[in-house]
């Protein structure tokens, strides 16, 4: 007696193919969807002050280091203190309602609570000064900040992405006087300094 129809003989095969397909799609979903490239890039939170890098760095052409003054001598690029803003804005647009939060901070001494866009995990130790010292430009990690009204995360800043550069630094380096230049091009690899030797071992970044 034949209890099951003959077509059921293909069931194991169908199950196997289905399971494999499911496996592949789950892997793909995790691989793609849960990657920093998908989850992190594009993060552009609203900031307490409606500050436009496009206006300041792009249109007005202020050098990055005017505000991020310690970037060449500290691990932190340093979000500028209110003091830096007030250097201009106690004269320029001093009554603008958009700058109310800034003036509050200046009067009260309390910090402006900026929202962090480029966030590294706590076990990663990134040093701005070290990267600038060998000729990594701001734009390499932060993108065209000079075109952003609201700062947006451009790169995944994942470990794999870091290592892409650490394993092949030469193409990404530029002359040190071009570090803050957002539009510099010409990295043909010949400028790379012989002694640039970025770490690829664990303790290079994890301590």
């Amino acid at each position: 007696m034949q209890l099951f129809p003959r077509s059921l003989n293909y069931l194991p095969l169908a199950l196997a193919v289905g399971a494999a397909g499911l496996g592949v799609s789950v892997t793909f979903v995790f691989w793609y969807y849960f990657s920093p490239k998908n989850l992190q890039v594009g993060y552009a939170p609203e900031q307490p002050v409606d500050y436009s890098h496009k206006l300041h760095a792009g249109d007005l052409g202020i050098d990055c280091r005017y505000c991020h003054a310690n970037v060449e001598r500290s691990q932190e690029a340093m979000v500028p203190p209110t003091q830096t803003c007030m250097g201009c804005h106690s004269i320029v647009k001093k009554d603008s309602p958009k700058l109310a939060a800034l003036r509050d901070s200046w009067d009260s001494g309390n910090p402006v609570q900026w929202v962090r866009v480029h966030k590294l995990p706590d076990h990663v130790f990134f040093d701005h000064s070290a990267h600038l010292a060998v000729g990594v430009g701001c734009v390499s990690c932060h993108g065209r900040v000079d075109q952003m009204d609201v700062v947006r995360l451009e790169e995944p800043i994942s470990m794999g992405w870091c290592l892409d550069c650490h394993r092949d630094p030469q193409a990404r380096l530029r002359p040190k006087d071009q570090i803050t230049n957002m539009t510099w091009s010409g990295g043909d690899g010949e400028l790379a300094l012989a002694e640039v030797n970025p770490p690829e071992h664990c303790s290079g970044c994890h301590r």
Partner: protein
Amino acid sequence: MNKEKPSRSGSKIFWRSLEEKAQATSTEVGSDVVKATIGLGELNRLNRRNFLTLSGAIGTLAGIEGCIRRPAEKILPYSQTPADVNPGEALHYATVLRRREESVGILATCYEGRPTKLEGNPDHPTSQGGTDLLLQAEILELYDPDRARTPSKGGIEKSYAAFDAMLDDELGRLLGKRGAGLRILSQPTNSPSFMRLRQRVMQRFPEARFHNYAPVNDDNVRAGTSAAFGRPLEVLPRFDQAKVVLALDSDFLMTETGAVQAARQFGAKRHLDSAAGEMNRLYAVEPSLSVTGSNADHRLRLKASAIGEYLKGLAAELAAAGVPIPGLDAAVRGAKVEGIPETWLKAVAKELASHRGESLVVVGSRQPAAVHGLAHAINRALGNSGRTVSYTAPADAGARPSLEDIKALTADMVAGKVDTLIILGGNPVYDAPADLGFGEALNKVNISLAVTSHRNETADRTDWHLPRAHELESWGDQLSRAGRYAIQQPLIAALFDSRSDLDVLAALAASEQRGQALVRETAGERGIAEELAWQHLVQKGADERDAAQIFGGLPIQAGSLAQVLSAPAGGGEGLEAVFLTDNKLFDGRYTNNTWLLELPDPMTRITWDNAALLSPAGAKGLGVNNGDMVRVSAGDASVEMAAWIQPGMADGTVGLPLGWGRRKGGSNFHGAGFDVYPLRKSDAADIVQNVTVEKIRGSYSLSQTQDHDSMEGRPLAVDATLQEYRETPNFGQFASPDMSAGPLWQTQDYSQGQQWGMVIDLNGCIGCSACAVACQAENNVPVVGKEQVAKGREMHWLRLDRYYVGEDENEPEVAYQPIGCQHCEEAPCENVCPVNATSHSPEGLNDIAYNRCIGTRYCMNNCPYKVRRFNFLNFNLDIPETRQMQHNPSVTVRFRGVIEKCSYCVQRIQGARIVASREGREIADGDVVAACQQACPTGAIAFGNINDPNSAVSAKREVDRNYGLLSDVGTRPRTRFLGKIRNPNPEMKG
């Protein structure tokens, strides 16, 4: 294996505890089984149902979490950046801290106004860059969340307004009677500002009186100089000038005043670059095995009360050897020296006599004045005065001896003469001599006020309590014993609303000035008035030179000294107790400090407790084993405490470490140790005669690291005598030869670039454990608690192994060995990691990426040095906010389930590399200093690039007595040790 050691055969036994010695042949499997069962017991609490519930919940949460962005993180820049602050980079400020009666210069590391680590100030003479374990742990005192936060009255919190109103009221009343009845009890001071303000208070209240008290003090030292020279003086030994040192009950390397400086000087004389070098010789005579005694070339265990007689006997022998002590011939005649080996009199006398002007006799503060006085006379007769020892007047010249002063104060309190008592620091209710009844006497005082950091036993009994500012958050100044004027500058605004001693005194003196203004005025009076000069002083931390007048050869007042010496010594046949300044908690002031509580005691290796120390024979006589409860009674007082058998204790002596068993003022020390202060009486504050010790029911569980990480009796901390060293300079490598055959796999090329390596000179290691605490502070190493230590789960990245060497458990020689990760070039841990979480860097570092670790612990099991530590629990969970402020921001705080271990301070390596790269240069030798190396007071640790032939570490690696630990298993460790050299006197044999 290892038996081929040429001159010293394998017959030498290395043992770590009496149990281990007794069971040298039995395996240690038993203890492992016990540990394993404990682990299983814990697992059983998680049954199948709970497990499924939890995993379901975790899965769901993980699913949700994966779809949601990490929480928004805020960046809070300064509104106005303070001068010099560069966010993200550390700044270093000079200040000064008190260590017993000495001031020690400090350089504090601060991140954005938050001090995280203390180092010695290389420009300050009492530190010269070195520190000790207490100075390293002081930073934790600052951030102690148990510190009092508001004024209180009778335990009820009050506002400063209420306090100030009360004080004004009270002072107004006192002004009427010229301050009669006003008493101020402080700790002994060396602060010029304190003394100046004290003067001002006395001007306002002429009838008031100041008292000083510290339970561990130098009363006897000053009484000794009074006996010898007719005036109280500070004694300044110069160990770097002495070839022969005789230490009588003196733990000058660890607990005596000026220990950091002494260790540095002593270390300099133990420094050997080759077999042709010279080193000093240390004789120690002491009742209880101290850190100094453990470093002695010859050690005699002797009851504390017999040490005076020994010194008399030695003085008589010195006279026979051609060094008469003028005017004291009669006084030293007929000393009771029965039972003391003849060599200890004759050979030591001969040695001292042949080293005139370059020998030194030092006496510990426990010994009575007569012994100190005689030692001064001997030093003078030997021509040592002015060469290996000099004297200065105390900074606080008029101070009465501590003990006398607290007696006088308590008597006045009982007699009702004290109306208002202000206690500035200290904890007299806990640590004043028990017979005085200080606590009860407080009831007779009209208004009492304690200004202490915690609401401790004293604050609990006073009417009012005021939080006292920590030295790292208040202005002050100090004079070293040699008179170096140093400024104590605050490194952080007061964490809690507290006041410093100076601020309280200024309020009493009706001065409007506070903090800096007070100190600045003192500096002005000392000739540092101009802004630039003041800035310079604050920046450097100390004045350029010592201001005190140094006395070299002072005449001995033989007549009065002879009289003091003729008084009978107290020693009898009965059992005698000695109070020991605790190696970790000092007098009890550090009792809430978890780093120190958990640090194994340098000698006993006990953590979280103290114990009554008995000699092996004494314990046998009582039938007592380690951990058995005993009752120690002296007169009408008795204390029940755990016993511990301490090799090297003098028979007939019981050692009682002070500072434990506290009851109020903190949350960490509850149940830690036993309070022995009840046995301490004002007439026997150092040595108590006719003590009885009896075994009582019960035993106590002591957590100690002694049997953990046992190295199975192999010769690890290799040692030899100077004689043997000269015969076989590379003796270390005989014991632990490097493997000649390479591994089977391809080896990495380490001949290029920076290659980091460390060399630890066992000859310089005195076992003080400063490195271990420094490592803990630098690397955010958690504290696990007594129960976890008992399970072998301590987390110290750097441990000190202490080995007893030799057959005789009564006269053990001691060898110390600091062990952190050896950074093997062929690391066994790396081969077994299934996820590649630990791997080798091209610079020879054994790296670990915490977030890759899945916690298999294979590496831990495969490490022959047992240096890898596993976070069995989340030790960093829920730690108070102030405590978190101490964390080094350059080091990851680890989570449960990951392995961690010594990283060679890789954060400091990377920091130095980045600074060098910014400046466009290569890392220079000395740019990278490991935390342990920096803390070491003797400079025993060298670290640097072994590929640079000119680096300090390369020079050390060239020294012939270097060897790698367990090199014969082929690990090729990057940390090398230099074998320990002992310098015995051949004439001391037999």
